[in-house]
């Protein structure tokens, strides 16, 4: 037991030994923390709306004013010809263009149906669609107000929406809890995978093998510092989320740490697995990278898992990041209790035990024991 503590102490000392190494623990976290939440928004703000008003009446003016007032469209560009419309969209000067046809106002006031056209830049289809959604709401609201009682008769029902856990659908509330898991991934994997590879290159690994320490202890001696790094970095991000970005935290702190520990364990499992296969530091680094990229994409962070084909959903289930993100989001936004967090924790523990066991066996085989 004391030997284990010695191992862990050594690992932590090595991590903190050079200023370069210390910087590598903190800097990436801070950088990513500052950039990610702002960059990673699928919400549409600051986008330009182009308006080609072929009508001149009151109705079109009213609609244009409402669009102009919308938070989602801070800048409006007026267009006066078809050619200009073409150019605007071609050169990506506007995300969305609205063409209000001639006679629109006259038709609306006389109770006829008149449609407005929305031209969407398909190259940025994702953001454009969201922009379209906002514009649609505004137009529909206007139409509803213009409806006569008779028309209203055929519209007796209304949809009232309440967005739970994140009432204003702030994307940052969605991004930051996920970041707690994502940003710690790099740090933990580097510590476990690369440090082992480096010891092999330096020759100190042999020194460890010759000591009374069993391979199991040596592995634990690498896994636990990895978990500690994960906890450290995760805490920084969680604190930043709550105090800097004002994300609410509705769960309990000890559950958050429990989740981070389980996640750290599963990550360490992967890290040790990677390093047991790799011959040197370079391979270990590329191996970590090769694991991380698909892991982040398939975690549900960039797009929901339910949208993926079944085969990929299975892969996502084996991805520790998926479960960690679900649990952490729940703890931040949904007030998860233990019984609600547990369904996400046991897969992490399962992944950890499988990867650690496989790593152990490869370890033993490779060190000629």
């Amino acid at each position, binding site marked *: 037991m004391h030997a284990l503590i010695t*191992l862990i102490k*050594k690992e932590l000392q090595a991590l903190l*030994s050079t200023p370069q190494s210390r910087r590598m623990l903190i800097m990436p976290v801070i950088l990513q923390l500052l950039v990610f939440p702002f960059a990673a928004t699928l919400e549409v703000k600051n986008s330009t709306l182009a308006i080609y008003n072929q009508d001149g009446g009151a109705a079109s003016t009213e609609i244009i004013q409402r669009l102009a007032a919308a938070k989602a469209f801070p800048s409006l560009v007026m267009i006066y010809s078809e050619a200009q419309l073409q150019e605007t969209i071609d050169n990506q000067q506007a995300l969305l263009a609205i063409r209000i046809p001639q006679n629109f106002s006259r038709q609306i006031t006389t109770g006829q149906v008149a449609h407005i056209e929305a031209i969407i830049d398909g190259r940025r289809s994702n953001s454009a669609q969201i922009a379209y959604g906002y514009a649609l709401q505004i137009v529909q609201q206007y139409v509803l107000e213009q409806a006569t009682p008779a028309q209203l008769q055929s519209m007796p029902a209304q949809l009232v929406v309440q967005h739970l856990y994140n009432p204003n659908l702030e994307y940052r509330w969605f991004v930051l809890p996920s970041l707690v898991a994502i940003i710690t991934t790099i740090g933990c994997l580097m510590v476990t995978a690369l440090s082992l590879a480096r010891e092999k290159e330096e020759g100190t690994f042999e*020194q460890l093998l*010759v000591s*009374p320490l069993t391979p199991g202890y040596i592995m634990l001696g690498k896994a636990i510092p990895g978990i500690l790094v994960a906890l450290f970095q995760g805490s920084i991000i969680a604190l930043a989320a709550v105090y800097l970005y004002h994300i609410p935290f509705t769960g309990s702190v000890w559950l958050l740490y429990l989740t981070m520990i389980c996640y750290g364990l599963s990550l360490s499992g992967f890290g040790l697995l990677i390093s047991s296969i790799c011959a040197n530091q370079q391979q270990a680094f590329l191996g970590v990278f090769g694991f991380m990229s698909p892991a982040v994409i398939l975690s549900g962070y960039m797009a929901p898992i339910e949208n993926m084909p079944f085969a990929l959903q299975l892969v996502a289930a084996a991805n520790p990041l998926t479960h960690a993100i679900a649990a952490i989001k729940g703890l931040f936004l949904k007030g998860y209790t233990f019984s609600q967090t547990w369904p996400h924790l046991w897969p992490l523990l399962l992944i950890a035990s499988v990867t650690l066991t496989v790593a152990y066996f490869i370890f033993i085989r490779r060190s000629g*024991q």
Partner: protein
Amino acid sequence: MTPNPPSGAISIADLHHQFDGRPALSGISTAIQRGKITGLVGPDGSGKTTLIRLIAGLLKATSGTIKVENLDPIANASQLRGQLGYMPQKFGLYEDLTVQENLNLYADLCDLTGTARNESFKKLLTFTDLARFTGRPAGKLSGGMKQKLGLACTLLGSPKVLLLDEPSVGVDPISRRELWKMVGALAHDGITVIWSTSYLDEAELCDEVLLMSEGLLKFNGAPQEIINTMRGRSIQLRELGTNKRAVLKTALHCPEIIDGVIQGHALRLVLKTAGVLPDLASLNAGPNAHFVEVKPCLEDAFIDILGGGPGGTSVLAEHMPIARLAPDIDPDSVIEATQLTRVFGDFTATDHVDFKVKRGEIFGLLGPNGAGKSTTFKMMCGLLRPTSGQAKVMGIDLKTSASQARAQLGYMAQKFALYGNLSVDQNLQFFSGIYGLRGKAQQEMVNDMVRVFNLEPYLNTQAVTLPLGFKQRLALSCAVMHHPPILFLDEPTSGVDPITRREFWTHINGLVEKGVTVMVTTHFMDEAEYCDRIALIYRARTIAAGTPDALKLMASKEGETDITMEETFIRLVERDDSERKVAA
């Protein structure tokens, strides 16, 4: 310091060099003669590599002049490169490329083409005996073969000046001799060679030597010149009746003696003044012991210049308790290998090797690179699992109870595997911790080590920046803190200067006096003489075993009385080769 720079193939005048204000070379002036082999000798950190790099133009001197065949290494760099061949310490080989591909690369970089190229290849491949291995990746070559390939690549450009930075480190005597022969032939052809080494027996064979220490040039001239100054001061104490180590220790305490080592059954001593012998009776060397004058060697002169060897008492050993054995362990087989075999695929690395090591004995495993010596060694440490046979330590079978066995052994790896970016103190704390020391006992032990090895000024220094001698001391202390009764040393003095080497062996001898059993591998044949018994492993089998003197006898021809250990090694290996050919 002569005012006019001396002439020669390479002339150096008042050369100073600093790294960030730290002096590395101070006031070096010399002339290196054309067509001769000049040895560059000195302890680690003396400035040998810096000097070579300055001559090659890889560094720009802080002050002073260098002229290589009248060219300035910096100003006339491109011109000089065509005439210079440089082999750095790591040989400059690309491990993923085959032997032939490495040769092709360097040939292209020298613009060697056409028939001249093919002829050069043929000549060099025969020269280095690598013709059969052209398709093998350089990373899979043995140490000696890598060295030869490195040299071959350097020679492709037909350089006029050859700079070799420690080309024979970690290479077995046979390969070393072959390398030497090759370089000798080159010098004969008129090439100027600078050969930097820490092996003084090699330096002795050079035409000229430059002895360096701490950036200063201590001696410059023919080896024989300085050896002659030692005439009458080298003696041997023969026919020791009793424990040679104890006698050595006593001898080193005598004021008349400045240095001493074990040589087989005898002691080789260096006197402070010629003819002034210590009192024989006081040495307790036994009734038949007597002094015999022997020819001095370069190492004697070197030690003399550096101020004499270390004393005979090991402070370390004094701090260690006596290594006692549990009563149920056979003191005659503290370390035991029985029919030890290891097979990798279809290649047998170790073939039914047997030996037993007694308590308090120093046992040496010798052999050429790739002979199976390291595999055997690793199996005895528990680093490798035997395919068949048994490896036992303190009566414990390493296959079944490896962990228990390992708590009883101390291990010093080649190149002193320490945690480079941790401090000396952190390393000490770590290694003591994993061997089970804790609390006050641990702290006391660490403090002891710091005191014994004078590590105080380096406590918070990163291990990677330590001078080589201190690295060795640190590695040794990390290996013995848990009072192991058995020590495994893997080439423990590779690249280290003679004085540090002697100090190291003083400690080892002291520990052995306290009952510690030691198993050591080395390429340094003088060290083989310090062993009580040796096993010579060649092509996976033990081809000779016994005391150093017994082996010398085996290898001696009719009438020969005093062959060196190195010669013994080479002859026994060659004999085995010819026996196999006959059998085949």
